[in-house]
Structure formats: C-alpha cells, structure tokens
C-alpha cells in the first residue's frame, strides 16, 4: 500500500510541476509578447531602437502571443484529457477491485518526484510510450528541472524586461539624457591641434568661392576621420543641425547627435565643435540648433580629428526642430 501511495504521489507531483511549468511558460511568453506590442504602440521603442526595428519587434510580439495562445489551448485540452483519463482509471479500479494495478505495472518504487514526468505525458494519449519515457527519466537521477521541469528562476529572469516596461524604464533615450550625466569622454572637450588649412590668426580659412553645404552630421564626422578628405571641405560654408552643449569658453560650444545603428547599446556620440565670434547666450543644454559657418578640422587631446564650424556672427545660430534620425540634415 505504501508503495502504491509513494508512486502515485511522485507522479502527481510531476504532473503538477509539468502543468505549472506550462502555465508559467504561457503566462511569461504572453506577457513578453504583450509588452513588445505595447512598446510599439506607446512609442517606447524609439528610446532604445532605430525605426527599422519597430515592425520586427511588433511582429515578434504578435507571433509569441499567438504561440502562447495556441499552447494555452493545447495545454487546456491536455489537462481535460488527463482529468478524463484519471476518472476512467479510477472507475475501472473501483469496478475491478484491484486498486494497485496501475502502480504495480511499473514494477518499482519512486518515492522521489521527477519533474520531467508530466512532460513525457504531453506526447499524447499513448500511455505506454509516456510511461516508458518517464522510467528512462527516472533512471537519470533528479536533475530534470533544467529544461522541462519547474524552474522558477527562468521565469523570474524573463519577467525582468516586463517589469521594466511597467516601471516605465528606460524613461529617456540617450539624446534626451541631460548632458550633466553623460560619460566623461563621450564628448571631447578641448583641442590641441588645428589642421593646416586654418589660418594662424585663428580665423577659419575660406575658399575663394566656397560652396554652401547642407551637412549631414554623420557625413561630416566621417570626413573628419579621414585627413585626406579634409581638403575637400575645408573653407566651405556648412549648415548643420545638432544638440547644444556649452563648453568652458562661452564663445565655444559643441553640437552633438546620437547615432544609433540598431539599438542604444551601439549608440555613438557624434560631435562638432562650434566657434562663435561673441559669447553665446539663450541656449540650454540639449537644445536643438542650426548653425552656419566655415568648415575646418581639429585634433582633440586624444588625437581624434573632429569637425569645427566657425561662425561669422552669432546670428548664424538659430533654434531647430529635434530629429532622431542621424542621417537627417
């Protein structure tokens, strides 16, 4: 009698674990899918990803939600079939009067629970197969919670992004973050070396017939990185849009843009130094501005070439509309 009871308990516990695991799989996957859809709908994705990823995240969310729904139906049916099966076995036992028949058929005692058991049963109605598999699992030991058993830590880990969403995190993208909290070195402050094309007086060299160029931020910083290309642009008039960051000197400031290729993890700060003839006033950190001035290039203290725009007058600075697109003019 004790034998039969021990086994029944173990198998029942295994089934319970299996259904618990399936329930949490459905719930967590459904929650992750729902959050993906909500992130798309609320525009939260724009803080962490570039627009080309919005639709894939939405589709991923819908797909995982649909899969969770299908799985929920399948598990519901399986649970119903199990309940019906259990009832019929019970009826059979009562009628035939051999209450130990099921347990004895296994031929050995399992006083321990095995979390994989319920999983095996999910194969379908083929009882013999299921039981045979369960026995094989028993022979392995008790390390079965790894994959199909009840392993709550996995769901706790997966729930982190869901909780973060409902906490409203992250609240801002890099471009909205106050400059005061930017990393040291994310934007370079000083400069030590100017390109040869700059005049000794500090005035920017201007070509006899300068072009007026609507500059893309990424394009300008790419050119700065290749000294052989400086000559092409030095002396031309450039018009540029970016976010305002004051420097120590009130006549100098930095324009920056955050360049995300895919996500915030690959975000790079692009910067251009602006030199104005008079102290710059009326702009705050992170304000979007247009500037228009003569293009040159300087090396900063870390040896990196950065673009410099020298303004003719402070009227060449004006307020601009924000944009998240690093390729936008």
């Amino acid at each position, binding site marked *: 009698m004790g034998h039969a009871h021990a086994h029944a308990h173990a198998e029942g516990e295994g089934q319970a674990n299996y259904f618990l695991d399936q329930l949490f799989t459905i719930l967590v996957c459904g929650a992750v899918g729902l959050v993906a859809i909500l992130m798309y709908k609320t525009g939260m994705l724009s803080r962490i990803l570039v627009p080309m990823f919005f639709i894939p995240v939405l589709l991923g969310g819908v797909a995982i939600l649909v899969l969770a729904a299908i799985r929920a139906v399948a598990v519901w049916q399986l649970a119903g079939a199990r309940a019906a099966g259990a009832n019929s076995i019970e009826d059979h036992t009562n009628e035939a009067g051999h209450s130990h028949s099921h347990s004895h058929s296994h031929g050995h005692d399992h006083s321990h629970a095995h979390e994989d058991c319920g999983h095996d049963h999910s194969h379908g109605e083929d009882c013999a197969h299921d039981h045979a598999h369960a026995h094989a*699992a028993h022979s392995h030991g008790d390390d079965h919670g790894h994959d199909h058993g009840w392993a709550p830590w996995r769901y706790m880990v997966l729930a982190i992004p869901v909780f973060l969403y409902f906490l409203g995190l992250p609240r801002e993208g890099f471009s909205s973050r106050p400059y005061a909290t930017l990393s040291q070195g994310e934007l370079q402050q000083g400069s030590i070396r100017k390109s040869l094309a700059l005049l000794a007086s500090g005035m920017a060299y201007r070509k006899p017939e300068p072009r007026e160029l609507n500059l893309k931020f990424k394009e300008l910083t790419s050119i700065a990185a290749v000294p052989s290309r400086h000559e092409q642009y030095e002396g031309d008039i450039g018009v540029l849009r970016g976010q305002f960051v004051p420097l120590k000197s009130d006549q100098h400031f930095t324009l920056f843009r955050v360049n995300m290729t895919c996500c915030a993890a690959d975000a790079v700060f692009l910067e251009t130094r602006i030199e104005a003839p008079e102290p710059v006033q009326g702009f705050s950190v992170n304000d979007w501005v247009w500037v228009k001035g003569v293009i040159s290039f300087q090396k900063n203290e870390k040896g990196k070439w950065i673009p410099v725009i020298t303004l003719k007058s402070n009227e060449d600075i004006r307020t601009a509309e924000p944009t998240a697109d690093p390729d936008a003019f």
Partner: protein
Amino acid sequence: MRFGLRCSVMATLLALTPQHPGDHVEKAVYDFVLTFVSIIWEAFPFVVLGAIIAGILEEVVPQQAIAKLIPKNTLLAVCIGAVLGLVFPMCECGIVPVMRRLLRKGLPLGTCVAYMLAGPIINLIVISSTAVAFGPHGLGTEMVVLRVGLGFIVAVVTASIVQAQYGKYGNSLLTPLAAPQPAKVAAPVEVSDQEPIHPSEQRAGESRPIAQRVANISETALHDFIDIMVFLTLGACLAALAKGYFTPDMVQEISAGYPALTIIGMMVMAVVMCLCSEADAFVAASFTTLHPSAKLAFLVLGPMFDFKLLLMFTRVFRRRLIVTIVLSVSIQVFVYTLAVHYLWPYIVPPVSGE
C-alpha cells in the same frame, strides 16, 4: 543552468558594487537600464524567428533528411556550413536555436558550428553594412574582404577542430537538447549526463492532424524561446554592466603604442558590448584613432563570441566544447589580426600626407 545562475549572481554583485559614487550612480543605472533593455529588444524578433524556425524544423523535417544533403567530406561540409549564411542569413541571436535543431536533425556538428560562427558575418546584410560603415573612411573594400576572409578561416578551422573532437567524444560534447537523435527508435533515448531530452523528439515525419502539428510547433517554439531568452537576458545584463566599466577610450589609453594590447582590448570590447553584427561595423568605424587591425579583431570576434552568446552556448554545448570554441576563436582572431597589423602597409599602401 548552474553557470547561468553563477553569472546572474555575479552580475547582481557587480551591480550592487558602488563603483560610481555620487552623481555618477544615476548615470550608471541609467546607462545600464538603457543598454540592457536595448540589447534584449533588439534581439527579441530574431530569437522569436529562430524559435519558430526551430519549431517547424523539429515538427516537419524528418530525422537525417538535411544531413543527406551535406557532403561526406568533412572539410567540404564545414566550408558549406561557413557560407550557409549567404543563403539563410541569421543574426547570432537567432542562429543558436536554429543550429540546435539542425544538430538534432543530424546535420554534422562541424557544419553547424561553422554556420553558427560564420553565418552572422558572411551574409549580405552584414557585408553591406561593413562596406557602408567603412566606405567613407576609404576602407570599405579592404575591411569587407578582411572581415569575411578572416571570419571564414576562423569558422572553418574551429569547426574542423570541433568535428575532430566530436569524433573522439561523441554526443557527450552536446547537451541532450542538441544531441542528434537516431532516425527512428521505439524506446526512449538514454542520456548519459542526467538531463532529459526534448518532448518533441521523434515526432517529425509522423502523420498527424494539422492542429496537432501547430500545437507541437508552438510547444517547441515556446520552449526554445524561453530557453534562449533567459540566457540572452542574463548575457545582456552582464554586457550592460561591463560596458559601464570598460570603454573604447580606456582601450586606447591602456594600449597606446602596443598593437597586441590594442587588439586584445578590442577583443574584450567585442565580448563586452554584445553588439548585433549588423551594427558593429558602424561602432568600429567610429573608433577613428584605432588601427584597422584592432577594429578587425572587434568585427570578427564579436559575432562569434560575446557574453550573451556564451550563455546561449550553454544550452547547446557542454563545457569542453565551449572552451574549445572560445579558445580556438579567440586565439585565431588575435593571431590573424596581429598579422594584419604588421602587414597593413602592404594591404593598404600609405597615402603621402597622412
């Protein structure tokens, strides 16, 4: 699981360590959350795609059917695996569940490893992004050729080593979830290392109603989604923490004048940053003061091995195989890129005036 838990405990301890006193704490937390969340959601659609493909493969493709298409010659099979990304482009996050199912379906381990390592580099999307990122620097063609070439060599050599190791140790190198299954067995499969096999084994090729098939696909897909996303989340956590401590500027300052140190530094950056292979070229191109060889190390190693991939590998490979792959890939990338550093004047003759 034990390794994953250890990593998460380590990550928590690191997060609680007050490395950023005062105002920097807010910034550190902010950067951590932003980076952590962005890595997860960027990878999310690819993991879903990979999980669905894995579910379909498991349910529909009969055992050994794909393996029959692969040549018997090991080297040829490995080389095919290395260029498979041109036909089936997958990023490094989505490729792991697909590769695991292909392994179960009997595709040779060497071919799968070659696909897993080279697939995220040798595909048209990544080739284009590398060309676009380095094009303005006048190095588009050189970087594409070197990245693809080195990626191919590293993947083929590593996969060949792995295949040889498989000949010696067999399925004990793989987790039960990844171990190839026999074409048809009546009895359940005994697994030597105390882990259960997947429920859906042996289902493919059997005749059953479409509703049952869809239910089975959803079961496998959700199982793989959870399995991979958990470790992706832990990897993203590690990456976001490490990123706050280790920056390209630091690499530059520490390694100035020492090419070997710079290359090692950028290899560490690749492991730490966990960037998508479609985006990493743009980040590498922004390190304008670094030698191209160091950027190349970053670009070749990153898609093959980083924190998130390391944790994902634990769902497919045993420790012995993970160590083999990591060592082989790391050593090769270091040696080849160091060679590129010294051969660079011959690869790209210097332009006067620079």
